[in-house]
């Protein structure tokens, strides 16, 4: 029995929630700087003078992704991934591609490996190197030499036949063009999608209207224009 008057009342019940509040403060972590998502730079090569384009894809069929580069020293090269994140060997595909502007890796001849498309500005050429499946690129096939001042090359199935057709943007004749792939890496004549006065700089392809075919997007740096061209599914554009 408490020896006190029975008419007590509580003045201040120290509620559990208030005790909790006290301890919640303990949980507040000291805010440290967020570590970066990415590690510091690891140089693969210092021999790509005026590097203009990089990609990574499996070029030698060993299951890991190799690095592919194009540079202003007229060179396309690739760097083999040894599977241990080392890129030690520079494999030169070519060193005499004067005016090299753009590359794009894709399976051009439908043989299951990744070939390399490229465009050279001065000779208006779009061509591709055939991969022998082990990363050997001995054979060169020309697609066109009439893309006057070609800046950009891209590949996409334009006419829905399952093969990678080729797109180009050329800055002197201001044309966006495509070239039909016969499925074995042979290409039909240049087909002009549009002539954009003021320059054709970059070309890309995606289904923008969700009708199942590949539409074409272009960027023109000179006249500050981004446009797209609707594909009717067979390679006619409007």
């Amino acid at each position, binding site marked *: 029995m408490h020896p006190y008057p029975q008419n007590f*009342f*509580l003045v*201040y019940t120290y509620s559990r929630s208030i005790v909790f509040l006290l301890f919640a403060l303990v*949980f507040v972590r000291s805010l440290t700087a967020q*570590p970066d998502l990415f590690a510091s730079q690891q140089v693969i090569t210092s021999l790509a003078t005026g590097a203009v384009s990089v990609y990574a894809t499996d070029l030698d069929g060993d299951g890991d992704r190799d690095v592919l580069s194009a540079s202003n020293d007229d060179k396309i090269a690739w760097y083999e991934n040894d599977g241990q994140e080392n890129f030690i060997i520079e494999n030169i595909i070519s060193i005499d591609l004067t005016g090299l502007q753009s590359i794009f890796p894709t399976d051009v001849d439908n043989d299951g490996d990744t070939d390399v498309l490229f465009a050279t500005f001065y000779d208006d050429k779009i061509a591709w190197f055939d991969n022998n499946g082990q990363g050997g690129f001995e054979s060169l096939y020309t697609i066109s030499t009439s893309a006057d001042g070609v800046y950009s090359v891209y590949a996409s199935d334009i006419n829905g036949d399952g093969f990678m057709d080729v797109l180009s943007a050329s800055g002197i004749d201001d044309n966006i063009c495509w070239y039909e792939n016969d499925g074995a890496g042979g290409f039909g004549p240049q087909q002009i999608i549009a002539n954009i006065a003021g320059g054709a700089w970059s070309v890309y392809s*995606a289904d923008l209207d969700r009708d199942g075919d590949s539409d074409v*997007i272009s*960027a023109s740096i000179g006249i500050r224009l981004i446009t797209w061209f609707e594909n009717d599914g067979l390679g006619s554009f409007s």
Partner: protein
Amino acid sequence: MQVISTDSDGPFEVLATDLDRDLDIDILFASFDDNKIIWIENEGQGNFGLEKIISIDAGHANSVYATDLDGDGDTDVLSASTDNNKIAWYENDGQGDFGAQQIITTLANRPHSVYATDLDGDGDADVISGSGGDAQISWYENLQTAMSDFTIPNCLIAQDSMFIENSSNFILWPSTTYQWILEDVIISTDKNLQWISPPLGIQSLSLITCTNTSCDTLTKTLKILNFDLDPLPVLQTHIPYTFTNTSEYITNWVWDFGDGEMAEIEEPTHTYTEPGIYELEISIYNLEWGNDCFMQLEYEVMVTDDGTGVSNTSDTGFSLSPNPAYNLITLIRPYPAAEAGFIITDLSGREILRQNLGANSSDEIDIRMLKAGIYFCKIAGSSGVEKLVVVE
């Protein structure tokens, strides 16, 4: 030909991908002359909206790339900008709103190209850059790996409900899974641990964090004791009171009664000689669990001359009129302090009304919300209490 944009200042590289997860393909490009990274929403069927700026700090940007970098299922954006030798990325919140520029490197001398894909086979997208100025092709490993982290105090008082915050990973990827394990039993798979009635004593608590590609386990020792002070009545001067309580897993107590007196036993008996409100400070220890297992709790003890809770000293610093009252009282303070709070509590100490006061010597207090009965009034932070009788 359908025009998407004529506003951009030198579109250098354009690509197309779904950036806002509405299933149609949006346009992303680097705008060279105004240093911007911009996207344009496909509003369906190839109708495009206004330009949305991701960054205005990509100095002469001439390459962009888009892929999921942080593993949260949306498409993030990368930029290469030649002026400031910078490769950077921008986190997509999933709706096409992008976070601040996050720099990957500023060492790529005049970078002309950026790309990302998994190079080291750990399931996340690493970044590759090609820079014309230093003739380098470089890569940057994506460090997205699981890392468990949480913080608990040296020891804890048992709570009805406890919250332990998960501080795993610097970026919490939605694909990340969590398991909270107490002594081999999974108690939660939520990110943070909200814990109802954790058991007393020493136990091990583990957090297993897994991303798509890796898992990490962190185990900590949880020490939970129990201390619950029985509700304090209003004490009366010169009458001893024993501070009864529930103590479990506690080896030492230090009581500071707030009047200069101390005690070091579990249930001390103490007598206050002067009326007032005292800060009671109780430090509890479990020295068997380590010297760092202690906590300090603070309580207020009200002591009056006669145990009614109403001070008969004149140090309240205020008076009330009328008293009894029914709708309005006037609070008179001869020495008003600025920014005081006036508090009315019921007999149990529960706050019923609080009104902020300016530095006025007289304030009107509306008490129409109070039911008939007896209340206590005080100025926040001071000890004097006046009894207020409210009539219908």
